[in-house]
């Protein structure tokens, strides 16, 4: 079979991966700190930790998965963004529609 390996064999250090990895660790620890050790209100904490989760997800899609590369990159990014939109509508929408049953007194 063909052995058409890439010609660019010079020491390619995987900067993107290392940056993605370190920032993922930092974002995880920051989320943990905000959740358990900060003095924010519960609502603020929830908004903050979910924002951090979305930032980390975007980082990994770009740094680890190279979502935007190749000629299909734009379509791939658009597709994932649309999926994320549908996902938010499904998850948050379910919560919103069912909210009357979530905060019953005897469960709080």
């Amino acid at each position, binding site marked *: 079979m063909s*052995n058409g390996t890439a010609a660019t064999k010079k020491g390619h250090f995987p900067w993107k991966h290392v940056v993605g990895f370190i920032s993922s660790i930092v974002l995880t620890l920051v989320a943990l700190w905000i959740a358990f050790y900060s003095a924010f209100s519960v609502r603020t904490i929830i908004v903050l930790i979910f924002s951090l989760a979305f930032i980390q997800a975007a980082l990994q899609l770009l740094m680890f998965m190279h979502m935007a590369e190749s000629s299909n990159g734009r379509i791939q990014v658009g597709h994932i963004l649309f999926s994320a939109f549908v996902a938010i509508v499904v998850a948050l929408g379910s919560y919103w529609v069912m909210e009357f049953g979530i905060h019953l007194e005897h469960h709080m």
Partner: protein
Amino acid sequence: MRMDNKIDPKELEDFPDEERPLEYQTETGSLNIFGFWMFLGAEIVLFSALFGTYFVLIFRTDSSVLPTELFDMGLVLAMTFTLLTSSFTSGLAINEMRLGNARRMMIWIGITLVLGLGFLGMEIYEFVEFASEGATLATSAFWSAFFLLLGTHGVHVAMGVAWFIIILIQIKMRGLNPVTANKTFIASLYWHFLDVIWIFIFTGVYLLRLVIA
């Protein structure tokens, strides 16, 4: 196996700085990767339904075993960093693959596999622990949603492990070529994706439940 037409590099300028990577060198290969991104979009929506269920049922513990008593953040953090590191090492495997180092690539995939198995081991340990404390799929609506979401993710991880093992065997037999490189790249996309889902499990399942407790 017959190879389909190679893409003329001059035709497309999507990899301007470097030579076109192996996994993108055939038309089928490029389309496989593109198609896999479409599949990942569907997976995102699949998991969003499970997350929605969990959010809705988040207080429905039926006064039985409470998650606040059972959730062990130390274990969860260990799982988080194990899976994150495995995602990183599978990325390094692809980096080596693009440099043409089949051997180093296989070593990184091996490390990824070990970490993946470690993650599965911890998850199984967690589930057994929860079950022994009286929290099972049938205990309450909350635990049903919890085990359904985490279980679906765990099954995905198990499939990823099996997938990587099969790919390692295939590369051992056939070496690195546009077809095997393409398969490896797609498996690594899948593996990264499992870590992306885990970020939301870490935040939306564990942190969220303990914060609102």
